[in-house]
């Protein structure tokens, strides 16, 4: 028996090693970093312990800009992408014929490289001396003025960022919602039809309550994902996001750690923990709300 008990741990050993070194230890360490004031990464020394790092980050205009950007991004993309994917999934569940083809097409963005396709979005929306870009062509067609979406006004840049983010997160949501809709037992709909229930009533009184657990799962993961936005922004606006006013909280963390403004792991840690606290709070609020509204 003694021999067997050791064996179990032996099988776990590789996983424990990797998780210990690259997950558990860093988790503890990041808290320590965030309270070490004046940490110098070259000499690995620090002056004292306190909350200065937090106060620095919270007063850093770049961080505040990043928080603002991230909040706008979350507030727009989560509802838009969830609503749109619900609409599309409902459409898909109504067409048995071409459903598989459409589903496969819709899933494509999931397997593409965010950085790579971001470049395509960039050239579609960018205005250069040589060309106004395809997006502006469409705007001109409807009588609008050309706008540079990549180096132009803040709202235009935010628009492209939101659009691209929605484009990237839709495949996952459509897939999950389509399978949730497909798993609703057909006889509920039959029963409702026989009772002469209108389509909108079937949707609001039967379908929506029955898929509400999936909806809340998507909303929660959507919030978490949108708060961690970063590579979409890099793809569109390049690595110097602070200059483009398009930085996100995660981008701020990495910039503090490494890059042109890097070398401050303490500030990075403080920012990462602030992000974690925000995400945790919002997730908890989401869970509380879902307890009230998810029906079973």
């Amino acid at each position, binding site marked *: 028996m003694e021999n067997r008990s050791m064996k179990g741990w032996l099988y776990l050993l590789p996983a424990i090693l990797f998780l210990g070194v690259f997950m558990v230890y860093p988790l503890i360490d990041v808290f320590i970093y965030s309270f070490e004031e004046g940490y110098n990464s070259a000499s690995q020394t620090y002056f004292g312990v306190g909350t200065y790092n937090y106060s620095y980050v919270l007063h850093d205009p770049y961080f505040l800009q990043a928080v603002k950007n991230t909040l706008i991004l979350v507030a727009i993309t989560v509802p838009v992408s969830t609503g749109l994917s619900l609409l599309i999934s409902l459409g898909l569940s109504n067409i048995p014929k071409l459903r598989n083809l459409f589903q496969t097409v819709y899933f494509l963005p999931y397997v593409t490289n965010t950085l790579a396709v971001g470049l395509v979005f960039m050239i579609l929306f960018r205005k250069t001396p040589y060309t106004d870009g395809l997006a502006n062509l469409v705007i001109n067609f409807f009588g609008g003025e050309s706008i540079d979406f990549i180096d132009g006004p803040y709202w235009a840049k935010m628009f492209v960022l939101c659009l691209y983010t929605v484009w990237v997160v839709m495949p996952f949501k459509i897939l999950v919602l389509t399978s949730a809709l497909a798993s609703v037992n057909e006889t509920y709909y*039959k*029963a409702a*039809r026989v*009772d002469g229930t209108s389509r909108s009533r079937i949707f609001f*009184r039967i379908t929506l309550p029955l898929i509400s657990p999936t909806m809340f799962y998507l909303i929660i993961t959507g919030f978490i994902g949108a708060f961690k936005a970063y590579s979409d922004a890099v793809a569109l606006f390049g690595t110097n996001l602070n200059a483009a006013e398009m930085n996100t909280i995660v981008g701020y963390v990495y910039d503090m750690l490494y890059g042109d403004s890097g070398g401050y792991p303490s500030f990075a840690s403080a920012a990462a923990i602030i992000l974690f606290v925000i995400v945790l709070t919002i997730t908890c609020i989401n869970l509380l709300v879902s307890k009230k509204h998810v029906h079973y």
Partner: protein
Amino acid sequence: MKIVLEHLTKTFPGRGKNAPDVKAVNDLTFEIPDGKLVGLLGPSGCGKSTVLNLVSGLLKVTSGKVFFDDDDVTNIPAEYRGVGIVFQNYALYPHLTVEKNILFPMENFKGDKKLSKQQMQERALAAAKLVQIDGLMDRKPAELSGGQQQRVAIARALVKQPRVLLMDEPLSNLDARLRLQTREEIRRIQRETKITTVFVTHDQEEAMSISDLIIVMKDGVLQQTGKPQEVYDNPANLFVAKFLGTPPINVFHGCVKGGKLMLGDDVIFKVKHVEDQDVWVAIRPEGFLLDKHGCLHCQLQNVEVMGRDVSIVATHPAMEGESFRAIIPSTTRVDDEAATVSFVLHPEKVLPFSKADETRIDAKLV
């Protein structure tokens, strides 16, 4: 309300490329009289649920017509037909309480049928009382037993006062004891409401015990309709004879020769006006009477005592299958050591069928 089906046919596209279309229901014509409880009976896959869906309007007919009284409802969508359905899995909305489930159909009423909240609640309560679940109104379906869910489903189907009540295998999800109880319950509710009710089942005992009328189907084709006892006593063909009755009917290879009905070498009856031919002879288990001087000589295999009666398992050279079973009252003494056993046969329980097309040969046996 009476339901009439005329040459009803439903085909489904075959699966896979070049697969032929499947005829689930083939040229079905029958009439269900007003206010009766009708059992639609057949083995699984015979198209009986399809018939139910065609009557309800959930499926579109391929050809033929459906009438409710004199109204042609063939192309009317389900929601306008005024039918109530009890589904096999009950289809109770899991997120709504029992009361909300029962209220649901009434909340869809439009125009002059619209009810006030008060009226709806009164009707819901009346329906709940009818099926004796009025104490469970605040529960959710997951908190109910199978039998209770079944009752809620019936109440929900009845509350909108449907012209027709359709039930798809209403008892199949219940355990044996509950099934017996619930089927009497269904009978009672139908008698009280007098709503024309069609229920689908593959269990012949269930259909026989509570139906006013049974309809037997096989492979989408109507086999026979009639009162349960009539169909049992006078099956139109070998399939119906085999399908009804437990233990099942015993089938023998027989022949008619010179006015005599023979099983192997045993002459069992005289028949008149029947040409010489090979026939199937089906004998109900209760058609055997133990008699030393009987005409049917068999090898005894086993005697099973079952309390009320005794079942004799024996073989005969002309047997289809390995052995047959005769049921006799337990007051008859059987020597289970004996190697052979002889029977006389009750003429009404012996049913000859043509070997060519398995239809009943109408002949008087003496």
